[in-house]
């Protein structure tokens, strides 16, 4: 149990309890690196958040640059309907449609052997099976 004059140290936003709130800290390790999420600090305002970020994420010289962002200012998207809708979206992936099964069915219908992509000629049977 924390003493009464000590702000709640539990998880979650603490604004309103001693006026503390979470800030997210991003750090760059080397010039040219992307900013990566380092962690968070709890602070009463952006000024002290910057000091705490410095002491927690840069006091050993491990950061070239920090971004300190009030967590409340971050737009969070986590709705599955938005991010992971239930329909097949494989055609949006760089690999495109999964064609293997459709091609196999078409070959079975026409009796044609598989052709090596780009060779232009009849495919030689592969000794090690079909990796596609």
């Amino acid at each position: 149990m924390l003493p009464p004059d000590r702000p709640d140290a539990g998880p979650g936003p603490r604004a309103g309890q001693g006026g503390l709130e979470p800030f997210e800290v991003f750090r760059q390790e080397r010039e040219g690196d992307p900013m990566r999420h380092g962690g968070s600090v709890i602070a009463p305002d952006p000024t002290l958040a910057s000091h705490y970020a410095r002491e927690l994420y840069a006091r050993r010289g491990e950061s070239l640059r920090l971004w300190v962002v009030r967590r409340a200012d971050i737009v969070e998207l986590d709705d599955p309907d938005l991010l992971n809708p239930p329909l097949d979206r494989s055609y949006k992936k760089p690999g495109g449609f999964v064609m293997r099964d459709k091609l196999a069915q078409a070959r079975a219908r026409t009796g044609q052997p598989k052709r090596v992509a780009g060779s232009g000629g009849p495919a030689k049977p592969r000794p090690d099976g079909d990796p596609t």
Partner: protein
Amino acid sequence: MSGPAPAHGAATASLLLALADDDFVLGFADSEWTGIAPHLEEDVAMSSMAQDELGHASAYYGLLAKLTGRDPDEIAYDRPAAAFRHCRLVDHGRGDWARTMARRWLYDTANAVRLEALAQSTDRSLAELVVKVRREESYHLAHDEAWIERLANHPGEPRRRLIEALDLVGPDAPSVLAPLADEPALLASGVQPVGGSELQALWLERLEPVLVRTGLRLPAPAAAALDPVTARSGHGSDFEALWTEFTFVRRLDPVATW
């Protein structure tokens, strides 16, 4: 290494000792907050800044050791409490959070003025060190000011405690910049380019905007805080306790190899 003429060695040594002891004592006193600061982040920040002060002290003791041919650890840990030459301001114990922040703010503002002058010291090794120390100190000062404003702008207990703290430690604050007994020699050699009285005036100017913004006042200086001798001697019971603590392990076995 181009330094001052050897004749000025003793005066330079007294300046280095004052600088080192100030940061050493403040660093130790502030490190008492480790584990009990107002919240976790402040705990880490305060502990880290206390370590910074010990780091600065270590660097000053290092210069002093080179100048006097002594061992820095001996200077730091093997002196009786009465031989320390830290100022009256940091002789006050940490007290509550408001007193710690008042002590830090008054010290860091005064120290900033002192270091700004010493960056032009004719003692090259001191000037080079001070340039590095200042880069770190500017962040300490910004942290202090953020806290002073927070406490001052929160009516009720925070503001009341801050005012009590300023009333207690404020009269001793000018001791940071009180002229050293060796000041004439330090000014003559240029090791210390600006005298204590002038530094004190600059320091008060520096405090003014924050005092005006917050409606706080700094109490009149104590006579003992302005006198070259009493500003840095006659330590109180707070420091006796601190000294007992920070020399404890060393005194168990002074010749142990670490």
